[in-house]
């Protein structure tokens, strides 16, 4: 692995310190308020937490990819599932899109501002009628002399309420199917852009999830990211990294849940012994540990491959499928070991449980991951009828 051990340790302690000081004392409040104050992103930016692996030229730390995943993992380990999602979108998805696809000017304009936290990023693919089936999207971007005119609506957009910049996927050629999709860097201050009120969820309360509306929204020519018509190909190219980030979230959250539970079962007594002394408890926790070790090895392998530029979409799908399903199972088993306390908001294990549940849904559902894996083995299924 390329990252030096001391680098990793240095970053690790920096990340932990920032989370302990700047996030932990307030996180419950943000969960209650169903949102993270915008200023927190500035704080994270100042602390060097955003764009860890971005080039120094843009203000990044140019650290290894591994360390950028470590940051996601640590946020999730602390039980800040909502923040982990928002962070994953901003730092691990939107920034790499711009770095990989943007023009020099686009990079100069957005990356430093995203690294400092001045600009918060979001990415808008999903629509009411197009989730798993992204090619069915109906948002359009029509060419006009001033640039492009965007019309349509998006749903479930993480960071949508606060973002200054949204990568919007739209059809520039509705007749061309997947080949008619393009990506736009949309400045949310422009007229014609509006947001719904936040979508209420059963978990990840602190993360903002919003509907976005575009009504004759005119963006300049330079808002196009990459080439017109290649949007779908870009999505397919970048989604593996997003899924890797979700995998890192899953590992971190599972380890965090397990650590809380290990503590609890050694303190709590029933029938004159510690909960930790019941064989059932021991075996449940042993199983969790065994799964985690396997998962960790696979994550490390994917990170190494990504680093070398040869992580395949199938690798990423296997990772996301197995790790997020594992996360839900572990959170579920751990909650059970807390008895009634596990059902109360006061005990953070309950948050690990509700925060986990969406991990098998967003960034491609478990079913879609299976589709991706199956196609790599069997090809596309033949249409019948």
């Amino acid at each position, binding site marked *: 692995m390329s990252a030096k051990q001391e680098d990793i340790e240095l970053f690790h302690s920096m990340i932990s310190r920032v989370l302990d000081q700047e996030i932990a004392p307030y996180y419950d409040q943000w969960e209650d308020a169903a949102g993270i104050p915008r200023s927190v992103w500035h704080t994270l930016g100042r602390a060097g937490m955003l764009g860890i692996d971005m080039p120094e030229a843009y203000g990044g730390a140019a650290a290894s990819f591994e360390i950028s995943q470590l940051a996601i993992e640590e946020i999730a380990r602390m039980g800040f599932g909502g923040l982990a999602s928002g962070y994953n979108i901003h730092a691990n998805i939107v920034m790499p899109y711009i770095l990989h696809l943007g023009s020099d000017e686009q990079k100069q304009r957005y990356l430093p501002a995203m690294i400092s936290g001045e600009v918060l990023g979001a990415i808008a693919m*999903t629509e009411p*009628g197009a*989730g*798993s*089936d992204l090619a*069915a999207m109906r948002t359009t971007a029509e060419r006009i002399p001033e640039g492009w005119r965007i019309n349509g609506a998006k*749903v*479930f957009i993480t960071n949508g309420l606060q973002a200054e910049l949204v990568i919007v996927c739209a059809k520039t050629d509705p007749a061309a199917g997947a080949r008619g999709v393009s990506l736009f860097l949309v400045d949310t201050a422009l007229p014609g852009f509006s947001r719904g009120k936040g*979508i*209420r*969820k*059963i*978990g990840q309360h602190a993360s903002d999830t919003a509907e976005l509306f575009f009504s004759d929204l005119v963006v300049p020519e330079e808002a196009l990211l990459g080439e017109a018509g290649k949007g779908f190909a870009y999505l397919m190219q970048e989604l593996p990294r997003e899924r890797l980030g979700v995998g890192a979230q899953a590992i971190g959250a599972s380890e965090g849940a397990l650590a809380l539970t290990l503590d609890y079962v050694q303190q709590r*007594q*029933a*029938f*004159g012994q510690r909960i930790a002394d*019941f064989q*059932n408890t021991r075996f449940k926790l042993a199983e969790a540990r065994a799964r985690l070790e396997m998962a960790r090895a696979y994550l490390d392998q994917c990170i190494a491959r990504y680093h070398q530029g040869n992580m395949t979409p199938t690798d990423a799908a296997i990772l996301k499928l197995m790790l997020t399903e594992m996360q839900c199972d572990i959170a579920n088993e751990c*909650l*059970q070991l807390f*008895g*009634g306390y*596990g*059902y*109360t*908001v*006061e005990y953070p294990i*309950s*948050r690990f*449980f*509700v925060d986990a*549940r*969406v991990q*098998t*849904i*967003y960034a491609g*559902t*478990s*079913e879609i991951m*299976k589709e991706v894996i199956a196609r790599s083995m069997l090809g596309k299924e033949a249409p019948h009828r």
Partner: protein
Amino acid sequence: MTNAVDQQELALFRDSVIKALETEVAPHYEAWEKSGIVPRELWNTLGNAGMLCVDVPEECGGCGAPFQYSVVVGEELARLGFGALSTNVMVHSDIVAPYLSHLGNDEQKQAWLPKMVSGDAVGAIAMTEPGAGSDLQAIRTSAVKGGSDYILNGSKTFITNGQHADMVIVAAKTDPNAGARGISLFLVDTSLPGFSRGRNLDKIGQHSGDTSELFFSDMRVPASALLGEEGQGFVYLMRELPRERLVIGALGVAAARGSLDMTIAYTQERELFGQKLAQLQNTRFEIARMETDYRVNKAFVDQCIRQYEAGELDAPTASMAKYSATEMQCRVADGCLQLFGGYGYTTEYPISRNFIDARVQRIYGGTSEVMKEIIARSVLGRA
């Protein structure tokens, strides 16, 4: 096996329950979920609609209906997605009221049952303490004789209906040295001095279900508050818990029906990749798996209900019903939520509530692990 209950009449009763819930509960339920509790008047509304303690004998103000009628009320609450309210009503009608019917003397029955039937009094039962959940024998709340009264000291936690309760059945130690044999039950009138309520605990689901801490501080209750005999409390708990567990199982089965119904409808509407979600084989197999899971459990729970009515339901079998049906309920809610995609994670889609409401069913009324202990002992004896 012939069924003593007239199924046609039962179906009519079920319809009337559904109608009442649709008018009195459905329009307000989301608001109650947000406020974290149901309004106190709801109990009177349910009482007026004839939905509380329906199997309480007529001489105590009830309508003396068979047990199945009481189950129907809980089932419909659960099926319609009112998880928290189903828990509240179950505790009141299917746990507290039967304790009184089975163990109370005439005076006690007359004092509380008619009011519980009308909703003028809300009932709760307080066993769990911070240091004693699964291990009920470890309770420390004490009841010490003081003249002709008992003086209660201690605290309870996780008490369903704790905020609204007018009467709480409190399990307390009358003889701290006698272990399980030193436990007695008291009918505690919450208007007496020395009683206080703590917070309504904030939970991840069943938001409108109130779950509270209760405190007893030199609380004097008259000797007439003793339910049954002194020192027999643990025996009574063991005797009554099977009914509680059976009803929790029945709620689980009904809630799963509700989850399945809404999911079946959704998969037939939602389109993706040029077809209905319901046409994808994975969806079909998931629905097939869950429908099977549901029916097997429904059959077992229904059998247990008949056994209970015949006085033949033993504790291990009731534990199997609770264990199996609530685990099934959680599996089904989870599988259904997944089929809703991102919408399943939002509060706007009721499947999300079914998912979070279900999770506690494997915990309260005795955890799945405690159910397995009971079942294992009946098969293998003590370890």
